[in-house]
């Protein structure tokens, strides 16, 4: 893709597919942007481009990772937010205006993929949606092989997220980067059987679980392709179980790692970037980098092989961009001053030389006061 084609795409209000731009051109643009950022304020796209090419922007970008919490701005219930994509996207776009930030999460809740497979889902008015665990779709290990592949056209909830992407890009094309979170194959199965049973099945019946993961991955790939078709440039696979609090490393690499690789390859083939989300305890950065080559990793806790953030920066800073890792309980209970101080610490540890986006470790607590989301955005401007 030539420079004139890039400019043409930007004129049309679209971020050009980054994978089509040669590395040397991206690096040149990032250097130029970084230089300009020392003198004037950058746009969101420029800021993200600079940091993801490991150059320092005007200030660190911020991804407040607000999902369901934005419904507070419109007075919508959790149920309305989950079931009506117009409610969700209107709340999100309003949040972008009111609270700011460089990244807007696109999604309804964590049950989207599983409910399209047929898992009964409960949508409370005052809390986040969850599967009806009393009525799991996969009742015993023999059901894994019975899981049927679904067509995207008959997957209403995934279609709703695709619709949200289209609308977000149409209305606010370049004002933020829109990022949908796609559950990992094992996370989808956990919604249809419970995490505990899936964990045990991975040891006792690995072939059955693998067969189901293959089915799920096929559907997730269709979903990712449909999301990429809308013009998105970053997709965030949620790899929760690639962590000490999930599967053991060896087991993850054997079971889900290959499917993670397949998913990442599809995203890269579509010239989009992979931004893994993993809010598990002790995430396996080494495995995720090896299997999925992510351009960014959003994380809550330190990886299993790093004792502090400085070691993390030294070990993985040149391999990926960090998104994180302000503690979510602090966002819930902390005063704005405490949040500001914590953001400063995170920025001090991770921002030097680029490759960093300030964010909560996980989704912004959906019922927390939104004031601390504003503080996150402000902290990135002030200390970043």
């Amino acid at each position, binding site marked *: 893709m030539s420079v004139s084609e890039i400019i043409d795409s930007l004129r049309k209000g679209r971020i050009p597919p980054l994978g089509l731009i040669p590395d040397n051109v991206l690096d040149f643009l990032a250097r130029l942007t970084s230089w300009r950022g020392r003198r004037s304020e950058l746009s969101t796209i420029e800021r993200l481009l600079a940091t993801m090419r490991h150059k320092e922007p005007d200030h660190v970008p911020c991804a407040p990772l607000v999902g369901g919490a934005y419904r507070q701005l419109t007075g919508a219930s959790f149920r309305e937010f989950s079931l009506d994509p117009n409610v969700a996207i209107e709340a999100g776009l309003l949040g972008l205006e009111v609270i700011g930030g460089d990244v807007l999460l696109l999604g309804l809740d964590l049950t989207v993929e599983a409910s399209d497979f047929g898992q009964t889902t409960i949508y409370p008015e005052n809390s*986040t949606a*969850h599967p009806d665990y009393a009525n799991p779709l996969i009742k015993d290990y023999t059901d894994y092989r019975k899981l049927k592949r679904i067509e995207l056209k008959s997957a209403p909830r995934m279609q709703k997220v695709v619709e949200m992407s289209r609308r977000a890009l149409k209305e606010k094309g370049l004002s933020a980067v829109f990022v949908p979170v796609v559950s990992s194959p094992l996370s989808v199965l956990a919604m249809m059987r419970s995490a505990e049973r899936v*964990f045990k099945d991975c040891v006792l019946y690995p072939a059955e679980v693998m067969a189901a993961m293959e089915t799920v991955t096929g559907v997730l790939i269709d979903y990712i392709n449909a999301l990429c078709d809308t013009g998105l440039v970053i997709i965030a696979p949620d790899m929760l179980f690639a962590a000490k609090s999930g*599967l053991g490393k060896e087991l993850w690499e054997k079971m889900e790692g290959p499917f993670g690789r397949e998913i990442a390859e599809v995203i890269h083939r579509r010239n989009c970037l992979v931004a893994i989300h993993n809010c598990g*305890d002790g995430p396996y950065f080494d495995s995720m980098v090896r299997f999925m080559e992510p351009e960014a990793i959003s994380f809550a806790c330190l990886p299993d092989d790093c004792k502090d953030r400085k070691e993390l920066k030294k070990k993985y800073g040149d391999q990926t961009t960090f998104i994180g890792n302000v503690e979510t309980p602090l966002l*819930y*209970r902390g005063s704005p001053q405490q949040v500001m101080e914590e953001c400063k610490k995170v920025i001090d540890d991770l921002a030097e030389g680029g490759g960093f986006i300030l964010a909560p470790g996980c989704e912004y607590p959906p019922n927390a006061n939104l004031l601390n989301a504003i503080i996150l955005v402000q902290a990135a401007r002030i200390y970043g």
Partner: protein
Amino acid sequence: MNSEKNKEVLNSVEKAVQEHNADELNKSIDQAGKQEIPTTEIRQALFQGLEHLRKKLFTPEMPLPKFLLSLDVLHQGLKRLSSAEESEKSRAIPVVIGVVEGDPHDLGKNIISRIYAASGYQVYDLGTRVPVDAFINSVKEKQAKVLALSSMISTTMMQMPEIIKRVKAISPDTVIMVGGAPLDLNLAKSFGADGYAESAVMVLEETEAAMERVSAKEKW
């Protein structure tokens, strides 16, 4: 000679838990019965097996899935011993445990519940989505010395302060432990809990420390 043989059987009970081998555990418990090994010693061996694993939980040697399988095997062992243990129940510390209303996530609660059971507590597991009143009634009815509350969702977590306040009003000496992904130590303190366990690895030690604090009326 007998004590040597008994030790061998008890070791095999411990090993069966560690290797999550239910068949081996059943055989070992049968053998222990034949050798008239007291139930308390078999139980102790089950507990030793779990303790060994609990300290290594989340390490490459003891990943969570294997720990869960060992807990299942341990649970089966405890069930087999339960009838023999009925007489001991009056001496065990009663614990009421459950996940707060609206929250269906039971993985963490199940692990903690089984660790308590294996460690000599008398566990009353109320399950998931437990209404506030059910916790209060159960604490009263079972005269719980410990109430363990779990929540994995920040929205449902907000019931904890009310539960804690109401339990403390009727039973000030009941030790209230909280845990779950959206919580941290400071949040647990601000809710009025007596203790907080970040994970299963330290739950017993944290519970004991909280019991000592409450009994000595020390501020946390």
